[in-house]
């Protein structure tokens, strides 16, 4: 007879990664190729499409992101329900998320590409993305130099730990996912009706 306690524990246990470490890098390359391909085809490697979103003229970025979120969310939560994938939740630190987010946004507007789309833009022959990529490396170093200080200060402001939206609202995950998928889809439909691009 199966020990019921053990069975439950097995289902919530970390599933072993289906592929070994060396081929994991190969998979990373294949997935990266697909990601860059999709970003370029979606036009989000183009300076005017990205800046156009920040100027609220071209809503391609919002449409791509919202569709990816709805499709991704439904799939990931179904897979997680059947213990096929792990969630990868980053801790919520309200101060760091807000200050970092605003700095990121300012930099995004100056460069016109974000870290992922800069890579796709470089591939598409937008060489100015290189200046931004060098800046991203330099900025990462600058942050590392400051990281001892940020850990003692900013990253302690409003530390809520690993928390999901449904936890915050005290709703069952399944209910929230369905409701949120419907809400985001409605926003996508509105965007399609109200925007030219």
């Amino acid at each position: 007879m199966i020990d019921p306690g053990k069975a439950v524990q097995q289902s919530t246990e970390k599933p072993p990664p289906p592929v070994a470490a060396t081929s994991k890098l190969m998979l990373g390359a294949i997935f990266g190729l697909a990601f860059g391909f999709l970003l370029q085809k979606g036009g989000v490697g183009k300076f005017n499409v990205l800046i156009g979103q920040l100027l609220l003229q071209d809503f391609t970025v919002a449409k791509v992101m919202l569709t990816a979120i709805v499709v991704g969310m439904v799939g990931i939560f179904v897979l997680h329900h059947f213990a096929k994938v792990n969630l990868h939740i980053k801790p919520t630190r309200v101060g760091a998320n807000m200050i970092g987010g605003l700095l990121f946004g300012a930099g995004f507007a100056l460069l016109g590409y974000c870290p992922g789309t800069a890579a796709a833009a470089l591939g598409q022959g937008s060489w100015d993305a290189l200046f931004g990529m060098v800046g991203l490396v330099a900025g990462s170093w600058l942050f590392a130099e400051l990281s001892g200080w940020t850990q003692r200060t900013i990253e302690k402001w409003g530390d809520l730990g690993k928390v999901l939206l449904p936890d915050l609202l005290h709703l069952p995950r399944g209910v929230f996912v369905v409701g949120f998928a419907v809400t985001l889809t409605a926003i996508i439909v509105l965007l399609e009706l109200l925007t030219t691009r």
Partner: protein
Amino acid sequence: MRICRKAPCFIGVLALLPLHVAVAVEPGANALNYPGPAWSPYIVGAGIGVLSWLTFYFSDSPIGASSFYAKVSGFIGKRFAKRHTESLAYFKDNPPCMDWEFVFVVATIAGGAIAALTGGEFTSEWLPAMWVARFGDSIALRAVVAFGGGVLMAVGARLAGGCTSGHGISGTLQLNVASWISVVCFFIGGITVAMLLFKL
């Protein structure tokens, strides 16, 4: 009383009218005058959503980009100042290595190239047309602004814990509170600075 309140409003509108006409006559930056996406954003968005199922299932990793740049800076740092680099708090928590995320972003460059070449969209240009229309054709100016933007973006991404990929797609689709706060702030910061740059 009612008229008194409305009068300054009316005068204000009249005063703004010539300003509005001036703006209309000399069209400001309009992103829609430049080429858009090759594919429907919904197809691409759904594709990225499905891709994230695959990366979670097969690689136990969410899609992300910004940590790649931190790894490159760590490699360079270790090459020139090994001990100092290893003493920094960020690199203690995140030792730089050639891992899945690193290969993923390198391949993203190649994926962008394949898409552009197969779609006849390979540009090979140092300056985007929309930038030239606003700021002229100085590559040096573009280089300085783009570099500064990159620096700000990296500091912001590391502080927030991710970028438009790690937070904007992977984190938001997991309903991570950190990601939703960050993404809203990405756009508040981005819209503010972009409006100042292109609309003022």
